[in-house]
């Protein structure tokens, strides 16, 4: 009996793994056909993609470095999704987090590095969290659609960033690319020993595990999932839905804000327009592909980080434009959403059915 129950559960889980994988393969085939239209050999494409993402230790490190901010920005979509909110403004929280972290570091020049780094992380998370909590709060208290407001806030954050790096916070020495002053080499968070991968990856993995525990193993997370399933039921049992929305959205934005802090303190060393590299938007894709499960976000971010990392090789070896990564991401996104319709259609995944 126990064995049968276990097998049933395994089948249910398998469905959530097999269908997204099918969608991924379909998107890769579609992308192969797409590049074949431009006279490139799809087999070369797949080879270089693998080579650029996971082929060598160098590409692995590149992939892991890119996966770090993706895990964090994916949480920015995955956490509010538990409440039924579609937040896609992780990019804005990332930029605000980066700005806050940079400002903090510049204010604390001369303090011990660890103090500066902790303050940077705290500032980035607070401001990023407030940015997304604003979207969530507006949705709950004013009925403003959170998808649209979070996206508008991305453009507002971008304008704010441009204003600050072109004006008040501009380092006069940065001529071609207006930037803030550097936070200083001593304040950079450095790499995991023996690798070129920065500590942001560890931050991301820890954040994802904490998010998973919060959502699936605490009363708070249970309440959030009830509210996500049925707001009326949640109110009937006396849950403060507004409080849940604000806290969950704050945590989501804090994750994306931390991604901004990591990009400043581990990669760029300062704030400039380079930070708007689309990690927030790719993070949204990661969250949907992971079906908003914080643990599944980790391998999916690795996969998408790998696709990002292979972009350079595709450009050099196949002469494909850098936007080809965007096209592939778009195809994966569309294909994964279309695959939603397949759930429950395969008898093999149904409980109690012998294969």
């Amino acid at each position, binding site marked *: 009996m126990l064995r049968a129950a276990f097998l049933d559960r395994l089948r249910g889980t398998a469905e959530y793994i097999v269908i997204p994988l099918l969608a991924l393969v379909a998107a890769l085939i579609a992308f192969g056909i797409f590049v074949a239209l431009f006279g490139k050999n799809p087999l070369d494409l797949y080879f270089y993609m693998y080579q650029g993402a996971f082929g060598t230790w160098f590409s692995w490190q590149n992939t892991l470095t890119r996966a770090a901010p993706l895990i964090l920005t994916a949480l920015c979509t995955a956490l509010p999704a538990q409440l039924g909110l579609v937040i896609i403004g992780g990019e804005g929280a990332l930029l605000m987090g980066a700005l806050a972290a940079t400002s903090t570091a510049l204010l604390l020049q001369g303090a011990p590095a660890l103090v500066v780094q902790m303050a940077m992380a705290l500032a980035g998370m607070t401001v990023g969290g407030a940015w997304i909590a604003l979207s969530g709060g507006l949705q709950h208290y004013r009925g403003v659609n959170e998808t649209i407001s979070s996206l508008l806030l991305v*453009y507002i954050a971008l304008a704010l960033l441009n204003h600050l790096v072109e004006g008040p916070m501009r380092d006069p020495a940065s001529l071609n690319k207006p930037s803030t002053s550097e936070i200083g080499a001593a304040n950079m968070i450095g790499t995991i020993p023996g690798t070129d991968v920065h500590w942001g990856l560890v931050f991301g993995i820890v954040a994802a595990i904490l998010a998973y525990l919060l959502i699936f193993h605490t009363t708070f997370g249970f309440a959030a999932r009830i509210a996500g399933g049925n707001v009326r039921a949640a109110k009937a049992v006396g849950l403060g839905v507004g409080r849940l929305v604000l806290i969950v959205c704050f945590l989501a934005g804090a994750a994306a804000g931390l991604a901004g802090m990591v990009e400043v303190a581990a990669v760029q060393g300062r704030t400039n327009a380079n930070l708007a590299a689309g990690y927030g938007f790719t993070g949204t894709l990661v969250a949907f592909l992971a079906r908003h499960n914080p643990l599944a976000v980790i391998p999916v971010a690795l996969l998408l980080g790998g696709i990002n990392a292979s972009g350079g090789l595709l450009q050099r070896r196949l002469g494909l434009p850098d936007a*080809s990564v965007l096209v592939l991401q778009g195809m994966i*996104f569309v294909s994964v959403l279309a695959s939603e319709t397949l759930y429950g259609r395969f008898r093999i995944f149904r409980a109690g059915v012998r294969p």
Partner: protein
Amino acid sequence: MTETALGWWVVPIAVLGGALRVSTPFLFVSLGECITERSGRINLGLEGNLVMGAMCAYGTSYLTGSPWLGVLAAAMSGALLGLLHAAICGLPRVNDIAVGIALMLFGTGLAFFLGKPLIEPSAPILPAIDFGWWSDIPQVRAALRINVLFLIGVALAPLLVWALASSRWGLILRTAGESADAARAMGYSVNAIRMRATMLGGALAGVGGSFLSLYYPGSWNEGLSSGQGITAVALVIFARWNPMLCLWASLLFGGAAALGPALQSVGVSQGYYLFNAAPYVLTLLIMVITCSPKRTLVGAPAELSITK
């Protein structure tokens, strides 16, 4: 020395001219979204249609020498993206908001991919009509040089009001938007109605994109659109799904977007980048003021997932 004589008057004139110029993409995208949403479906991906339309229009105009063929190509590319959206949303259990986000990424990515060779060359652009011939003041003349596409959009708004309210087509579309069951009971396929509405809406958004690359700013590059598509979708909510209100709202947003450049023209360059945020801040504020958590919005199609 008219320039100094005008003084600060330059700013409102430039804002007016900017409103007439900058509002056109907002206008076409919001009219398109209006049609789609009245059929009971939301397409958040019109930003992708806008960018794709801009690229297709520029490429076609460059290759054929005719900007109007470019506009046509933009409309067709937009309709195709709309078809893709509708086809995927037609599948059971697929969320239209998420598909819109996906197509926004896909459309912009595809446009950047295909548009790489178009960044250098210059294509013939759309003609404008000089409505300022009576004035000697160059700023006024510049403000009143009005593009033909804008005039088409202005004519389209009342036409759509009439078509939605009184034509057979409009009635069927609204039935699908208010009650899918009623439309089914009348023997119509809700999916087919929404597919046509999404394609038409997508095509209009594509035309809006052609304005960006073929008139103002008038070239193709990857920074061409900065969220006009998504702002326009928000604008439809503000305009209560009424095409005429979409027109006024677009003019308001165009004016807000023109504020930064207008101030710069009189030498106020402080905070230029902050003024770039004006249309988005305005959208957000208007949504905060006009939305309410307690009741559904007046005029909202009952089948719309975003207001349900």
